[in-house]
């Protein structure tokens, strides 16, 4: 456990000056600012909206692209960036001859990638809420302060986080093996497109395909409320696609551990 903590801290130390780390902060900030500016300049068209619709518009603008494009591409990038630090510096050999168990080194790297995804999605929640409330201060006619959906937003993003673990584990393994960006990127990109098509066309087995999970997470997030307006925003976090994603992550993570154990460092 000590080896794991040391390795995890070292992952942070190494990456804190890289784009891989800062992308996790800048991406939600950038999209948040963009939406803030958009809503600020177009506020006259939005004044008539009820507060709940405002929030759904505001949060939905991000979530719409999140599942289909932003999250999968971001995951592909993060999985690449935590591994490419070692590929570029040719440091796999030094990592694996540290007096630290190999599983600690491997697990710390994997969980650091998971942590970055979690951080990024948590900041999306924070910035969505923050910029929404900021809008109600600088444009009081936008009634963002009359409705609260912090809990629902947190639930949606947590669902997205869980649904992204399957892709992350696969991309992590691909990036561990291949030093160049194009192979994991190419495979990830093709699979993401296939996933989006599968999920949006409602293919019945799309819940088994990890690259369709973020998209599926968005489409399956609302509980079937049968027209009951009081429950309109009930979030269903643990749908079957989320379970599949978590199961794939677990299996690939353990398989990767055995592969790394046997891996010879050339």
């Amino acid at each position, binding site marked *: 456990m000590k080896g794991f903590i040391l390795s995890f801290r070292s992952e942070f*130390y190494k990456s804190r000056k890289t784009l891989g780390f800062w992308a996790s902060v800048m991406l939600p900030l950038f999209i948040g600012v963009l939406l803030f500016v958009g809503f600020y300049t177009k506020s006259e068209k939005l004044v008539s909206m009820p507060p709940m619709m405002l929030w759904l518009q505001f949060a939905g603008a991000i979530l719409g692209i999140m599942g289909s494009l932003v999250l999968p591409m971001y995951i592909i990038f993060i999985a690449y960036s935590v591994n490419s*630090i070692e590929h570029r*510096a040719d440091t796999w*050999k*030094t990592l*694996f001859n*540290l*007096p*630290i168990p190999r599983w600690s080194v491997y697990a710390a790297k994997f969980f650091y990638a998971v942590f970055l995804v979690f951080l990024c999605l948590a900041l999306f929640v924070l910035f969505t809420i923050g910029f929404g409330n900021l809008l109600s201060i600088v444009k009081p006619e936008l009634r963002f302060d009359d409705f609260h959906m912090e809990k629902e937003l947190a639930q949606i993003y947590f669902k997205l986080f869980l649904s992204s673990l399957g892709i992350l584990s696969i991309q992590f393994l691909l990036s561990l093996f291949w030093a160049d960006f194009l192979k994991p990127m190419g495979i990830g990109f093709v699979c993401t497109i296939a996933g989006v098509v599968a999920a949006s066309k409602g293919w019945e087995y799309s819940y088994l395909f990890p690259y369709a999970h973020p998209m599926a997470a968005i489409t399956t997030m609302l509980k079937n409320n049968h027209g009951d307006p009081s429950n309109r925003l009930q979030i269903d976090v643990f749908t079957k696609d989320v379970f599949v994603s978590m199961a794939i992550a677990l299996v690939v993570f353990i398989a990767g551990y055995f592969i790394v154990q046997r891996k*010879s460092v050339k």
Partner: protein
Amino acid sequence: MVIKTEGLSFTFGKQQVVKSLALQVPEGSIYGFLGPNGAGKTTTIKLLLNLLKPDAGNIHIFEQDIKTNRISILSQIGSLIEQPALYQHLTGRENLLNRALLLQVPAQRVEDMLDLVQLTAAANKKAGQYSLGMKQRLGIALALLADPKLLILDEPTNGLDPNGIIEIRELLKKLVAQHGKTVFISSHLLAEIERMATHVGIINNGAMLFQGSVADLQAISKPLVRVDAENTVDAANLLTRNHINVTEVTDEHLLVPYISKQQMGEINALLNKNGQTVYSISKQQKDLEKLFLDITKTPKP
């Protein structure tokens, strides 16, 4: 023995790169591991560090089996394999601090190491901007950071200028003499090893050709008679006709195995009598460089 291997073998695909190697590295020695490029030196080092798994054979380091005592053995080894592995986007000091974090070494040790390899002034420069020599020195500082008992260095003077080479040599000698370390150093240059090693292992095509102390190596080098003559080719032909074995002929000199002083006199007389002008005739020890070449040129069985 600090390092002891038995029957160590390793195969890349179909090619056997290490053949039943039996290394014996005594404590407190500087063991020069010599061989031409591609002889299997780096592969052997990776086997010693458990980065590669041997197909057959045992590795004992500090009298412990690497298979069952990996962590405790690795915690006492500092290594530098091929080019130093540095995070280019971090400064020299940050590279050391990162390793210090992983090895749980106090930060003061980082400053001491920077001082030791004379990188204090460049400590805040990104490692990517370092010259080759500076990178190599930082690599050595990283290897020494945890104050290991055994240093395993793979061609540590590659790309260094003569001053840098001398500095590293003096540093390694000091570490062995004053701090009781053992150094295992690979090289393809005998001249470099000759100046510091106490023990030598010569490897080619994955097989050990010689192992022993430097004195043992010198003992097997046979003396020669060197003749500088006006026309070395004619002189060589003359000697051969008189049943004297000539081992080498150049424009400048020829070489004949040394047997005795009398034999030297006879050669001189023979050449003079037949009108060959001899500039000088002397006995010389075959130098180690040549010996090394002879040993490693042995054809594959």
